[in-house]
């Protein structure tokens, strides 16, 4: 996988929570992890609102080529948090419940 740091992007793989498929993507270095998460979920068509019409909560997880994995701090910058070759995966908060039968 190629790094694109010199052009203002980092190339990483996006893993899709439901299909487990991955796609390569260039992520702008200047984004915060929170901004990147929002853009990633929109780009791959994940649900954007929850049952109460609030913005759907996601957190971004990363798996490093060395096998380590971690949840990324939403306030961190992509430039500091994601390295070339990382696999990133947005995961949702989901709330099953009683609702209306």
């Amino acid at each position: 996988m190629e790094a694109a740091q010199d052009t203002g992007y980092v190339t990483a793989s996006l893993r899709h929570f439901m299909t487990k498929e991955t796609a390569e993507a260039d992520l702008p270095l200047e984004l915060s992890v929170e901004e990147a998460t929002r853009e990633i979920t929109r780009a791959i068509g994940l649900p954007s609102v929850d049952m109460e019409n609030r913005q759907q909560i996601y957190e971004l997880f990363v798996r490093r080529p060395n096998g380590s994995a971690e949840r990324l701090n939403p306030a961190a910058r992509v430039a500091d948090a994601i390295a070339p070759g990382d696999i990133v995966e947005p995961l949702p908060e989901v709330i099953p419940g009683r609702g209306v039968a």
Partner: protein
Amino acid sequence: MLDLDLLLRDATAGHEVRREPLPAHVAERLIADTHVSGVLAGVLPNDGAPIRVDAFALETDDGPARLRVEVGAGETSFLKLYSHAVLRDDAEVIVARLLQAKAIEKGTYTFTPASSTVVSPAGGRIRLRPCPRRPGRLPGGSLVERGVREPRACRHPAIVLPREQAQALVAQARASEVEVGASLVVETFLIEEPVPCRLGLRVLEVVELAHGTAGTETHLRITPEALAAVGSRETDGRRAGGLAHSHPFGSKLEPGTDPRFLSSEDKAVATGWFWQPYHLQLIVDPRFTDPEDAIAAYAWADAALVRVCVYLTES
């Protein structure tokens, strides 16, 4: 890909009440179902190679709207037609959201798919490469060898739930007065016996949801960390296969009412996140100790969520 809307009409007057975009994963669900149907029918190759979407169209010319989905692989293609009824649960979720937002009045509505009239906004600042759909290969497997004595002629996926796993779910539910949940790790296989639906699922492991997951009497908040913990256990032969959660409010419902239903919230979870043909939803009523009485199962059959039977096995 065709962008779809859902048209809601007043069931009595017939006039249009609302037009809402259908999420992108609705189309993906139909594509995944068409693919697996083609594989089960022996028309599409079961080799794990990428698939094509040769057609995804809305047909409205001769009666009620229907969706035409054609999936190809190699030299072959498989066509499946879906009536608008396949969107019933998606419609229920949309209506529930609109009611929550007070965007529509309580009432009775009919629904039908329609071509979107709005152009999707261009992508943001991320440059995303095309990603071929690669559903993977289904290994062959026997229901009998997995402990099923007499395979039944069901038209839904065959679900094998070892009693040990079922009892673990029931014990977890009975140990709490609030909703609790578990992720299901499953194996998928192409059933060797001659049954109507040859997609087989066996629950290999139930993983209690932790990492900050918290329940109340009526809801369960599952954190991203809990889902990540399950994802780390996946391999080619072990997939995250859906969720189980308890409905501990059975004693507060009208007498005779079965609490093992899927609520609108449950359907939002199933249609939004767990829509692959091999995904399950299990609901556990903690008033019962026997899994046969405590557990109800829901699975996807022809891309629609239906209550299904399970094989409780001793092995």
